[in-house]
């Protein structure tokens, strides 16, 4: 600042030396210039400073909405985290689905030939930790949240954090079913918000066990804190539904069936009478437990973008092939949903439709499978009844007796009911079934840790399969 003063003094000095008439002129000239320090104080108008963002209860709630927004990113539940595993789950031999588009990243995933620089693998990672940082921010600022809503706010934040860590673990870490959970690597676990970026930000990967512990801790806490219903946002049932999925993945069949049972017994959900009504919704159906909300003005539906034909605003890059169609029994209502000569699934044919994350049908199938595996006494209902609930809705004949089906039938029912909703890969891995001739625990059907992340964090270890 001293330098500026001396310049001003210089100008004034010159001014003094010349006549007052000149002085007037000069002042006029200087007057046209609003040359003051104040000119430099400009504030942004689309953003606010971080201190303001976390100083009231309302603002922290807004950050929570920001976390939902991040969860709905097209790199996460906006689609990528659902259709990419579906591509990875295709065996490329029997070839039930095929990537026909021009984007190289999904093609690599479909071909099981993922390059470590694959941009979508990197974007999913980035988007996931962005959402996690938001939830961490909310959780760290709970003391400014009004007491009456504090539990709900924490529960929602923990739900979002839990479901994201769960999906990261399934994609970037070795499957839980592969054992060695205490040594196999999962993903970095970050539970504090980023206020400063320094060496401590270079977090190493935690073990698979530590990762699942974090997920269970978050989801169980969320279930205990959340209200039974909560509009389009996370409720205790939403947390329980995802919890049942986590336990199933871990092979905790008792806990899985109990969690699924809690959701079914909540009485807040019912299957839609027609299978087709469960999809392409602009508002949640009676069956939806949690869906990503999409509208014309907000959100992105990448499922539609890649599965739907141009008539429905999609690119139609993923096509369904006859070997998949052949899996359905004649008369299955689910068959009727395919279109364009049974090359496309009708589950995704609304550009501005919601993206279902978990729906009631999955709870029946989870309870059926877990009951079947854990055996009697059955929780909630007999597996045959749960299976018939699913089959009946799509006009398939009921099983008359438990001898008519085995575990494979349950898993097939699950596959057909939940196909193209992002389940297949994870179901294959937890049941130790291979993808074509690639073993369930092969690194070839794992994502690499993004190269960009390895480049900036020396503490990260790449998955074995992708080590140079």
């Amino acid at each position: 600042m001293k330098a500026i003063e001396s310049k001003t003094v210089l100008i004034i000095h010159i001014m003094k030396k010349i006549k007052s008439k000149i002085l007037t002129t000069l002042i006029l000239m200087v007057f046209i210039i609003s040359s003051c320090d104040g000119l430099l104080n400009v504030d942004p108008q689309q953003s606010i400073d971080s201190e303001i963002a976390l100083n009231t209860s309302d603002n922290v709630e807004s950050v929570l909405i920001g976390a939902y927004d991040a969860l709905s990113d097209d790199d996460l539940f906006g689609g990528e985290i659902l259709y990419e595993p579906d591509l990875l789950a295709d065996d490329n031999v029997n070839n039930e689905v095929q990537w026909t588009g021009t984007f190289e990243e999904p093609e690599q995933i479909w071909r099981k030939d993922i390059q470590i620089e694959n941009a979508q693998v990197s974007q999913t990672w980035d988007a996931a930790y962005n959402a996690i940082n938001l939830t961490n921010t909310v959780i760290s600022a709970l003391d400014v949240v009004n007491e009456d809503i504090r539990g709900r706010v924490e529960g929602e934040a923990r739900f979002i954090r839990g479901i994201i860590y769960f999906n990261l673990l399934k994609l970037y870490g070795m499957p839980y079913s592969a054992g060695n959970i205490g040594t196999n690597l999962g993903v970095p676990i970050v539970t504090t918000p980023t206020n400063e970026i320094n060496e401590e930000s270079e977090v190493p990967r935690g073990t698979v066990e530590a990762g699942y512990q974090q997920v269970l801790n978050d989801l169980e806490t969320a279930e205990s804190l959340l209200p039974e219903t909560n509009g389009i946002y996370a409720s205790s049932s939403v947390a329980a539904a995802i919890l049942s999925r986590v336990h199933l993945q871990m092979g905790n069949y008792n806990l899985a069936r109990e969690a699924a049972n809690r959701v079914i017994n909540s009485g807040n959900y019912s299957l839609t009478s027609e299978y087709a009504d469960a999809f392409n919704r602009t508002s949640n159906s009676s069956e939806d437990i949690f869906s990503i909300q999409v509208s014309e003005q907000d959100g992105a539906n990448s499922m539609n973008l890649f599965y739907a034909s141009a008539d429905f605003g999609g690119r139609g890059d993923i096509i369904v092939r006859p070997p998949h169609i052949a899996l359905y029994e004649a008369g299955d209502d689910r068959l009727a949903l395919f279109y364009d000569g049974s090359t496309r699934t009708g589950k995704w044919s609304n550009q501005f439709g919601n993206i279902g994350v978990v729906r009631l049908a999955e709870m029946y199938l989870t309870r059926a499978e877990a009951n079947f595996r854990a055996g009697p006494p059955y929780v909630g209902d007999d597996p045959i009844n749960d299976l018939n609930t699913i089959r009946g809705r799509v006009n398939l004949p009921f099983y008359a007796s438990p001898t008519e089906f085995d575990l494979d039938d349950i898993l097939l029912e699950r596959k057909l009911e939940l196909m193209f909703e992002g389940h297949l890969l994870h179901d294959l891995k937890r049941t130790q079934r291979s993808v074509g001739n690639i073993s369930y625990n092969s690194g070839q059907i794992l994502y690499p840790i993004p190269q960009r992340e390895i480049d900036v964090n020396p503490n990260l270890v790449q998955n074995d399969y992708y080590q140079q």
Partner: protein
Amino acid sequence: MSYKLQFSSILLVLLFFASTGYTQAQTVSGLVTSAENGEPLAGITVILEGTTTGVATDIEGEYNIDLNSDQFQNGVLMFSGVGFIQQSVIINGRSEINVQLETDINLLDEVVVIGFGSQIKEKVTGNISSISASEIEGVPINSLEQAIQGKAAGVFIQTNNGKLGQGIQVRVRGSASVSASNQPLYVIDGTSVTTANLSNTSAATNPLADINPNDIESIDILKDASAAAIYGSRGSNGVVLITTKSGRAGVTQFDANYAVSTSEPAGNKEWLNGDQYLELFDEAFANSSTDGTINGTLFGFTRDGLYDTFIPGWDQGYNTDWQELAYQDNLSHKFDLSASGGDDKTRFRVSGQYNGQEGILIDNTFDRISGRLNLDHTANDKVMIGTNLNVINTINNRLSSDNAFSTPIQLVALPPVQRPYNDDGEPSNQTVYDNGLLFRDGATFETTVFRALGNAFINYEPVENLILRGEFGADVLDQNEERWFGSSVSQFTGAARGAADNRYVRVVNINSQAYANYIKDFAQVHSIDITAGLSTQQVETDVVSVSGIDFPNDFFRQVGSAATIDGGDATVTTYTFTSYFARANYSFDDTYLFPVSGTVDGSSRFGENNRYGFFPSASVGWIISNENFLEDVEQISFLKLRASYGFTGNAEINNFQSRGLYGAGAYGGSSGLSPTQSPNPNLKWETTKQFNVGVDLALFSDRVTAEVDYYNKNTEDLLLNVNVPATTGFTTQTRNVGALENNGFEFVLTTRNFVGEFNWSTTFNFGANQNKITNLDGQVIQGNFVSQAVEGEPIGVFFGREYAGVDPDNGDALYYVHSADGKDYNAGTTNSFNGANRVVIGDPNPDFQGGIGNTFNYKGFDLNIFFQYVYGNDIYNGGGTFQSANADFFDNQTVDQMNRWQNPGDITDVPQARLLGGNGTGESSRYLSDGSYLRLKTVTLGYSLPQSAVDLLSLRSARLYFTGLNILTFTNYDGWDPEVNTDFTASNITLGTDFYAAPQPKTFEIGINIGF
């Protein structure tokens, strides 16, 4: 176009009022005109040799001088004036002597424009490249930077692609930044103008294309620190000072120019024809199929089944040349009219231009309508006021970015065995990728700019030698981008019943400055020239956009007719600069020069802990040819040594980047907040410390002039978008870390080989620059494709796997495995893409570049031949993974793919063709080439009608000319064009990358200039 009509009628009216005329004189009288353009020259001194008897020409270029009879018979008249070569004429009893004065092309006598003033080039101690109007006029270019290309030593200019109105990269003495802008500051008549990209697509627009090049009097590029430091934190990338033509006192002179031109692509690529395509793809299918033959299956498909699915029509015998379909027949017109004149109180120049350009690519046009008034008025002996005002309208019919199927050049990806049009003449939608021809008919993308650029100034001279100047400048730019996509292109847009969007940007850029200039000579040997003042700049950018889908039919194209509004946005952002500057030039005996300058610069962009920066500079010059000991060396007409050192800054980052910010978002109808940026209150400018040393030399009465410079530019505290672990929730943070340097050598040589009736002069310039990132704090910063910023390497090196050719045994693509330090490939080769490590495989920065021009004049003919060259850079073809991928997918392939490996023992660098086999199709040095080129940039042949013919037509001058642009290109690059940087990824780091980028145009223009 009603504008065109209005404009033409105005021009006709102006033509009607044109007139000429002059009178006779007595004793010795005559007219002094310019040999260059025949214009009368006012203020030329006419002196009788050996006496003090003299007069000056009046505003009409005429003089009368009274002489006695002896003088009348034996005297000699000397005609001299600034900027002209002195001429002596023996009177020999003639009462009328008309003289044509040659322009003094000796650069050293020129006045160059510097920041907040001007200076005699002879006294310049820094490094400034100057380009005059004659080098800009009459060249069929889209934007003025193209006129500088190859003409200023050390200034590297690269157009992204051959589309009109698109971004152009300009690097003055190399890249000085990794994350902040590397483009120079542009100042037009004292106002720093808006040049930033305002596009709503990934392809940048170029606001400089709004400027009419024919209005430019001179372009002065401040390259070293002593020249640029006065611009403080905006000076690191060099400063381009553009001065527009102003009026000259004298008879009102009209100049009209009309030119018509047509263009074709400067280069093309060779693609497979239908037979070759089927041969290669059948083989690729067989190699990938279940049983290794054409009868096997692939992913459950038979060959016919697969082809029917992806390339229907493949068996119909079509043989389409898709590349040809990307281009259009085109014709461009340019019409300029100017009037200039005035008297000793008021001078003016009015000019107008209509420039309607049609590009080589289908649907690509750029129209510019520009009007300018430059006026200055001497109110009394103390006060002068003036204004420069430019009003512009441009209309650019734009194309999609290079990565879109809808961009015309991407048609080449379509197989020759598919047809472009259905039987009904409509573009086919059966092609393997979306047929870009659908886009031609089914979509529009028009960008309209209205721009008012101008300033007003007052010069006040309260006492002798002291001038106070106040200036107020504004650049108000309104841009409207209107896109419409009809139902026929729904596969591009996902909008079955049409989509449209409209985005409106207004940039209000206000400059004001006030400064004092004091010039005084003391005791005959001391002279000082002091400038001090202050300037401010305030720029506000408003953006409003709206988009809609679902239209009743394709006749409705405005968002207002959409059934669903699916997006809308409105934002505003602002930045400001405040500068306090001073400069003092002291010279002793006109021989020893000591300029110093200092600027204190503040910006709203800097963090609260670092609001102001100080940017000083100092330089010295020694004009050795003024010393006694060189007086007798006749060969040396001028010799100067100079050196400078100084600090400049760079603040071209986004606004508010120092703050920790939360932005608004929404989910499920509720508004949300999310962190968008982590705070860095210490954020400040980048600092470049530049040392420059140079020599200016003129030999043989200025027949040969040369400038040699060496510089070293060290940039510290880089404004770096540092990659941070994404586990923080952020991927980058802007910090002041890292350093880079540019070292370079520049050489400029001008020779006048023949002087007289036949004139031949040659100019040559050479600029070598070596860029090196010396410190990135361990970061690897990725660009697109394989471009990266890597410590110890030049910016934007290609960093990827090194292709090792083809395994002769099995046709597998191989990659080198390098030692851990990446230096040697001692670990052999691998056929596993992920198994090969990444190393530096190429460098997009040229080792050296420049131009060489020859100008010939003989009688009425003028010929100018200008070559531009770039040497030592590499080009990475990002499209290679599709175009030259040994039939990996159904894209048409370049013809060299026919050299694929077929049998064990085959030696080739094209791997075995495997459909969907990914054999050698990853990003690697397979797609890297040498990008050096030598180009016949312009050749102009003109003929000026002799005075007798011109008089007969009652004109002042008339010239017909032919100009060719990019006529010949010599290069080893096998893409479309070696001048390339694909638009959608062009950045500081992604340089020299091709991806279906359209070639430069090869243009032929004929035109006529008429003065009256």
